[in-house]
């Protein structure tokens, strides 16, 4: 190699490298492409604080609200939208969610442009937070998040199968908080209760909780608590905590509320989830509302299905509502949050139910709207969010009617904009392959099925549980399931599953079928058919069946699984649980009718 060639390479290499950088396949650009200007004319505007006195013209350009005034010249290139009779709201903020799976587009379709996540798997944090600063997300909600939560070994939060670094002592607090901040936590969420007899979950003690609050404050982060007991909430506020992520159910002392108000403490009541857990039907109403139905994805429909029996004792919702009423009466800051996607709630959709529940607990519609816009933006110091102002981020929701008079108008969404671009309202989702009536498995040869896939053991180990399952074929040609259901997971199960491909990727459409039929016998107990839909992060649909020591035919109609979207079935399972105990179940002649 001559020196000349090498001299050439000194110049050619950087040029080539720069060329390569420009040739690399481009992704969607970081900045939203300067959208054509949009002019919404003659529209009522709730700016995050109040309804503006006169109809406005709002100009959107380049992801920002360019101008807003009662009368604006409209440039030729602008797309005009007549907003007469409609109200423009700032993008809504859900101040309490959990993000698993692809749910942020679901939120955006319902006008929720920002979610404040209160616990998710830390390894997904960076991806969830991407794009929130540079305005590059145009079809999904942005995310700020607590990341991992602070809890004791065996405490609430450990039951979901997400690995958690638990703690027990005050001197662990600062290191724990610093690791969360390094992972990307935007604030610190603490699970704390006063210890009680027969409590299902362990809890950190009061000194550890107080040390966590101090550790968060030492790093300039908010300290929030999941504290459902009145005493626990009191301890937390005494330790200097900044906000409660649920409203306690037990009556709160007036002087505690007064002190919280004086210190500027906020509360995110999450009446949606409390209502669903108390056996309420608000989620079902959202599911059935003609305003919402077309915009609900399969995931949203499946999580909106209410639990088959209440998790919370009777009267708990009334207790929560009474506390909201008292807190609101005292002037405390109240933020709208849903705790989606817990059973009975869904990302996006449930925020509208939450707004209705808040007005039922004494907030005026304007106060409820503030609780989902400017109030959370202020409480979490997100100054670019929650308000409509010239120069601000163009996250907007256009609804028909006047939600400052009738809060249910927020559900009549005409358009949503994220960073100045219109959010698509249609849902893109996979479609299953249609099934006709067929024999599935007779267990004459092995554990095979007509789908070419074997039956496999399935347990709650999938979500962090401890149950065990063994699946064998008996010499006389039956499927035998045995093992033990053990408490530990959010919902315990153990049994056998059948998917339609080994990797669980195949979807089947069972709308042309009426029922699943099989013969069964075993330990007299209640078993269940579980049906896994397209989204595996929700709780599976299930129907119970009884068996005894003698063979009997079991027939379960698909319609007995209301939360399943029958057009996309991923797998079925026959399982024991959630009651703990040993089980034995034999199955034969499984068929779809």
């Amino acid at each position, binding site marked *: 190699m001559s020196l000349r060639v090498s001299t050439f*390479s000194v110049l050619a290499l950087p040029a080539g490298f720069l060329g390569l*950088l420009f040739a*690399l*396949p481009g*992704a969607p650009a970081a*900045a939203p492409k300067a959208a054509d200007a949009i002019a919404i004319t003659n529209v009522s505007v709730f700016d995050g604080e109040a309804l503006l006195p006169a109809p406005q013209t709002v100009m959107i350009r380049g992801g920002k609200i360019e101008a807003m005034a009662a009368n604006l010249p409209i440039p030729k290139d602008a797309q005009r939208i007549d907003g007469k009779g409609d109200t423009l709201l700032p993008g809504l903020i859900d101040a309490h969610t959990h993000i698993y799976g692809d749910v942020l587009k679901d939120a955006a379709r319902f006008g929720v442009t920002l979610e404040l996540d209160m616990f998710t798997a830390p390894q997904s944090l*960076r991806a969830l937070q991407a794009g929130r600063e540079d305005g590059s997300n145009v079809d999904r909600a942005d995310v700020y998040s607590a990341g991992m939560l602070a809890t004791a070994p065996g405490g609430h939060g450990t039951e979901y199968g997400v690995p958690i670094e638990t703690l027990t002592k005050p001197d662990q607090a600062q290191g724990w908080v610093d690791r969360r901040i*390094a992972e990307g936590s935007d604030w610190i969420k603490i699970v704390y209760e006063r210890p009680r007899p027969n409590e299902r979950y362990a809890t950190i003690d009061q000194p550890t909780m107080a040390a966590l609050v101090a550790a968060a404050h030492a790093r300039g982060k908010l300290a929030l608590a999941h504290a459902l007991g009145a005493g626990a909430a009191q301890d937390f506020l005494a330790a200097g905590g900044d906000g409660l992520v649920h409203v306690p159910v037990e009556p709160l002392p007036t002087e505690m509320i007064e002190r919280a108000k004086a210190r500027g403490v906020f509360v995110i009541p999450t009446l949606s989830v409390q209502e669903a857990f108390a056996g309420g039907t608000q989620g079902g109403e959202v599911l059935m509302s003609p305003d919402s139905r077309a915009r609900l994805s399969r995931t949203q429909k499946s999580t909106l299905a209410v639990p088959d029996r209440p998790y919370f004792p009777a009267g708990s919702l009334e207790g929560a509502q009474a506390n909201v009423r008292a807190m609101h009466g005292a002037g405390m800051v109240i933020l709208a949050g849903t705790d989606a996607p817990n059973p009975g709630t869904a990302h996006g959709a449930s925020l509208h139910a939450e707004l209705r529940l808040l007005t039922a607990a004494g907030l005026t519609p304007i106060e409820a709207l503030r609780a989902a816009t400017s109030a959370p933006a202020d409480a979490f110091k997100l100054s670019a969010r929650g308000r409509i102002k010239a120069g601000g981020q163009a996250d907007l929701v256009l609804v028909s009617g006047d939600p400052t008079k009738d809060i249910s108008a927020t559900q009549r969404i005409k358009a949503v904009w994220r960073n100045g671009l219109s959010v698509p309202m249609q849902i893109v989702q996979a479609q299953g392959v249609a099934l006709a009536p067929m024999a599935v498995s007779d267990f004459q040869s092995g554990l095979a099925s007509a789908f070419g896939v074997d039956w496999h053991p399935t347990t709650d180990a999938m979500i962090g549980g401890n149950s065990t399952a063994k699946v064998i074929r008996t010499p006389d040609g039956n499927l035998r399931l045995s093992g033990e259901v053990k408490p530990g997971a959010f919902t315990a199960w153990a049994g056998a599953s059948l998917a339609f491909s080994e990797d669980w990727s195949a979807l089947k459409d069972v709308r042309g079928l009426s029922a699943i039929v099989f013969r069964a016998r075993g330990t007299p107990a209640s078993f269940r058919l579980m049906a896994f839909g397209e989204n595996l992060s929700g709780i599976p649909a299930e129907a119970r069946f009884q068996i005894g020591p003698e063979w009997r035919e079991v027939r379960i109609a698909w319609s007995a699984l209301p939360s399943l979207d029958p057009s996309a079935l991923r797998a079925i399972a026959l399982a024991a649980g959630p009651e703990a105990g040993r089980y034995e179940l034999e199955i034969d002649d499984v068929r779809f009718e």
Partner: protein
Amino acid sequence: MSLDRPRPSAPILRMLLTETAASFLSSLRSPSFILPTLAFPIGFYALFGLVLSRGEGAAASLLASFGLIGVIGPALFGFGVSVAAERESGELDLQRLSPLPVWGFLFARLAMCVLFGMIVLAILYGLAVGPGNVRLARTQWLALAASQLASAIPMGLLGLSLGLRLPSQSAGGVINVVFLVLAALGGLWLPVQILPEVLQRFAQFLPTFHMGALSLAAIGRGDGALWLHLGVLGAFTALFAILAARGWARACAR
């Protein structure tokens, strides 16, 4: 330093170019330089980032850290090991007599390291967009390349200050250890979050930790403390520059 340096007789730019080219060429001819600097980051990225990676985004985030390893390697070795050898063989004295000013010599060496870094990055980026299916916006690619190539400056200065002090026989070994410690404990091999807590704390005292944070920020995975990382790296650069300058003065005084 010496005032009796011969006056430059050729245009400075051409001298710089020639010196860079010579430096580049001599490195290309040295397998002990090429192997660790080229093969390691590329091989390990292919293994960890592409073959073994799970979950979305691993191919992209590992691109940020392995790209840094690819730039830091040439910078440390190119300055450290070769300067130690040149010092002992007397080539450095010769260099001081040449018409090229000291800064020109250093610049050419740095340019050589950056050129090497570009080769490594070009291959890594190619792997990332091909098998890794990484997609970044153009501004992100540019920011990523800039943040990674800029890391050559503090690391080159660190290599230089080591090379000016270490005997040539041990320079290779010592710099290898420095390289591995900076890369591994700074969270470039594996994310710092999976290290034990003590090491996680220690990582924050390493320049590589802050480089990693900046490269992640370039691809939209920043932790929000951009100015902190820039400030810490500025301080490290100044520290290494002082160490290098003192080492140079010492080497000259001998």
